[in-house]
């Protein structure tokens, strides 16, 4: 394998920190990934050499800031498959991006219309649609989840109808790691003229995408989960779809002209970027996209899946451990959830922490999925390219200790 994980780890300053005097094993990447030196440097360089408001000034710093901001847009567009830059909207986060679309599509929603989500969605891909449905008198339809934690696309036939306006689904589950059968969803949507939004928060950190080829209408992702800074997210939308969408927030830069009693709005993407944008965070995310685009993702995929296999191989040795999600490597990304019969997930995560192992425990902002499996929560191990076999072994050791402690 050509992939040198030690060299990659060297690019992440935080991976050298000690936790309770022990080496850090960061396996909470699904919550927030770590950020490489290249991203930090890009942001610091912006702050110390080019900081100014973008699109609003003619002076040298303003020109530099605008170039960096628009350059970041181009970097994101390239990462998403070379889409036109006008199709990239910078938002405050993945959640803000979904709210933007829900608000915009809401303008044309009528009572009785239907919105399809799934039982495994993150709250960020549920609550905005729920709020919209309440406002518009529309109905949420819930695609069921299979026993191995996948969205059950065989139910599309009964869930999707002529009343369906939007289908909003996670590309990859933040709990089970299962990847969606996008083609089935797009086919069902096309048949009835519904729009498709994919929540790519957990997909984007695992390599470049071709969002246009997926056939969907909107794609969203979170900067901080894709090795970028906090406070930045991306909405990609087909130009034809974005052009139809009314603005979300009002403010500076998103207007055509403001007169008393009459306001016109700018074309997209500017129409959706009200106020001073998160320039520094955008510059950081641009750097993260460049960084991701430079990696050998075939090798990384093998590496990540090798670690998942190592983890799955170790779980049978842990008494009372159950997997929540696909049992094998097929159709999954490196996010693995489990429960221990005798230990609450938060206690599990706390004991893992005492081994320097950082994982997430709880409902993962996916309470309907917890209800589906009738559990309070899971312990989740989520990987990034910089994880190594030592991380997995430390996690397995901690899990065994958790069970022993509460035996």
């Amino acid at each position, binding site marked *: 394998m050509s992939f040198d994980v030690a060299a990659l780890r060297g690019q992440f300053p935080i991976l050298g920190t000690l936790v309770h005097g022990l080496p850090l094993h960061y396996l909470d990447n699904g919550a927030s990934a770590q950020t490489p030196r290249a991203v930090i440097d890009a942001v610091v360089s912006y702050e110390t050499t080019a900081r100014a408001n973008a699109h609003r000034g003619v002076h040298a710093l303003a020109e530099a800031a605008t170039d960096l901001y628009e350059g970041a847009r181009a970097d994101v567009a390239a990462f998403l498959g070379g889409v036109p830059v006008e199709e990239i909207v910078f938002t405050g986060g993945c959640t803000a991006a979904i709210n933007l679309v829900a608000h915009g599509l809401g303008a044309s929603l009528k009572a009785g219309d239907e919105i399809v989500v799934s039982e495994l969605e993150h709250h960020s891909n549920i609550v905005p649609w729920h709020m919209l449905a309440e406002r518009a008198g529309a109905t949420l339809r819930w695609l069921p989840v299979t026993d191995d934690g996948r969205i059950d696309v065989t139910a599309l036939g009964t869930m999707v109808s002529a009343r369906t306006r939007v289908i909003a689904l996670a590309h990859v589950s933040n709990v089970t790691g299962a990847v969606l059968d996008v083609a089935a969803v797009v086919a069902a949507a096309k048949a009835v003229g519904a729009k498709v939004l994919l929540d790519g928060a957990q997909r984007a950190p695992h390599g470049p995408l071709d969002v246009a080829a997926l056939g969907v209408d909107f794609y969203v992702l979170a900067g901080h989960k894709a090795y970028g800074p906090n406070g930045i997210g991306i909405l990609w939308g087909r130009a034809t779809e974005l052009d139809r969408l009314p603005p979300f927030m009002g403010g500076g830069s998103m207007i055509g002209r403001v007169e008393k009693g009459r306001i016109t709005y700018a074309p997209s993407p500017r129409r959706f970027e009200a106020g001073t944008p998160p320039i520094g965070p955008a510059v950081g995310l641009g750097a993260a996209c460049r960084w991701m685009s430079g990696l050998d993702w075939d090798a990384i995929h093998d590496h990540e899946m090798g670690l998942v296999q190592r983890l799955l191989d170790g779980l049978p040795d842990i008494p009372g451990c159950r997997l929540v999600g696909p049992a094998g490597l097929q159709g999954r990304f490196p996010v693995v959830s489990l429960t221990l019969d005798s*230990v*609450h997930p*938060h206690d599990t995560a*706390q*004991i893992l922490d005492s081994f320097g192992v950082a994982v997430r425990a709880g409902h993962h902002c996916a*309470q309907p999925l917890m209800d589906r499996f009738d559990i*309070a929560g899971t312990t989740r191990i989520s990987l990034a390219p910089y994880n190594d076999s030592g991380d997995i072994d430390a996690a397995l050791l901690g899990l065994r200790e958790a069970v022993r*402690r*509460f035996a």
Partner: protein
Amino acid sequence: MSQALYQDRIVALAKAKLGAGKLANPTAIGERDNPLCGDRVRMEIALGPDGRIAELAHKVRGCALCEASASALSARAVGRDAAGIATLRAEMDGVITGTSDGEGDFAAFAPLRDHKSRRDCVTLPFEALRAALAG
């Protein structure tokens, strides 16, 4: 080291499940969720004519810290009124924030002073009981 959190006393308290169960005739019920983790505590009480807790039972869907706290609270709650429970709460707050040591089993929660994110696990049973006492 967070492992100190799960010293034998805490694990034993959690397993003991003191006061776990249901009352035949509760006079008040309080329920509280921790929305961040989804944990939930239900407290049933029967008040005596003097406004003091005569009987108490709880149901915990939560972590070991939450269960241990419910046990420790149950062991000391009977015979107290709302003010008396508030005193216990103040004592526990002191223990988990590190400003006092606490009596009996409460002292076992001292390691929480180093684990801010888990303090709500400990206070959830107290919140549920307060809700029950409030009516």
